[in-house]
């Protein structure tokens, strides 16, 4: 089986029970932290495609998102490790806090569309500021939807998207 076929196979049959279990472990880990930090919030669990999504909603107190979502990314990283410790499997779980990812998704989609239009007009490649993998993916998708190609350059955490002319 080629790598692409394997990818398709694993996408075709996400193990729902395993993803729900990931969500449960993550929710326990996060709830414990909220309790200690005396932050009010509810935890929603969901499965989107082949990954578990855990969202902390209706938060009162504390800033768990941080500048450019850096606290959110850190917390997601730790939550994935907590899941890994219990399941033995690498987790691709997505954490959202206070609707941050939805807001970013909308902003970055608009940015990708706008930059693609600029590049079409100018014919010159355009580099964007560094972004997280989550953010770059949204920009790449928006650029592709506008009919152009884009690449990521540089090293994490300073990796950035370059939009290429046709």
């Amino acid at each position, binding site marked *: 089986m080629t790598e692409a076929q394997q990818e398709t196979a694993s996408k075709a049959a996400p193990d729902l029970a395993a993803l729900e279990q990931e969500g449960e472990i993550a929710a326990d880990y996060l709830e*414990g932290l909220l309790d*200690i*930090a005396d932050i009010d919030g509810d935890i929603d669990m969901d499965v989107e495609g082949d990954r578990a999504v855990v969202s902390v909603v209706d938060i009162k107190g504390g800033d768990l998102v*941080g500048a450019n979502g850096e*606290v959110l990314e*850190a917390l997601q990283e*730790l939550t994935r*490790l*907590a899941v890994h410790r219990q399941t033995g499997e690498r987790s691709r779980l997505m954490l959202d806090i206070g609707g941050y990812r939805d807001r970013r998704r909308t902003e970055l989609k608009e940015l990708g569309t706008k930059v693609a239009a600029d590049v079409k007009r100018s014919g010159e490649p355009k580099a964007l500021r560094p972004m997280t993998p989550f953010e770059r993916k949204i920009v790449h998708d928006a650029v592709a939807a506008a009919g152009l190609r884009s690449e990521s350059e540089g090293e994490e955490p300073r990796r950035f998207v370059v939009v290429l002319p046709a």
Partner: protein
Amino acid sequence: MLEEALEHLVKGIVEHPDEIQVRARRIRSGRVLEVRVHPEDLGKVIGRGGRTAKALRTVVNALGDGKYVRVDLLDLDEVR
């Protein structure tokens, strides 16, 4: 509260959660939280390229009162 939060975060990701000690110290430039874990877990809490250590520091500082808190990661047997 920060000691407790840090202990919770570390406990969830190590193989020996019962062998964690967190101690707060004051130094001239501010606060230090010293976390000691089982020697086999030290690599785990530091992570590749210090990635996990950085995540722990970021979250702990986000929970704090805005004053920088240093987080030191050590193994239980380490003397200092």
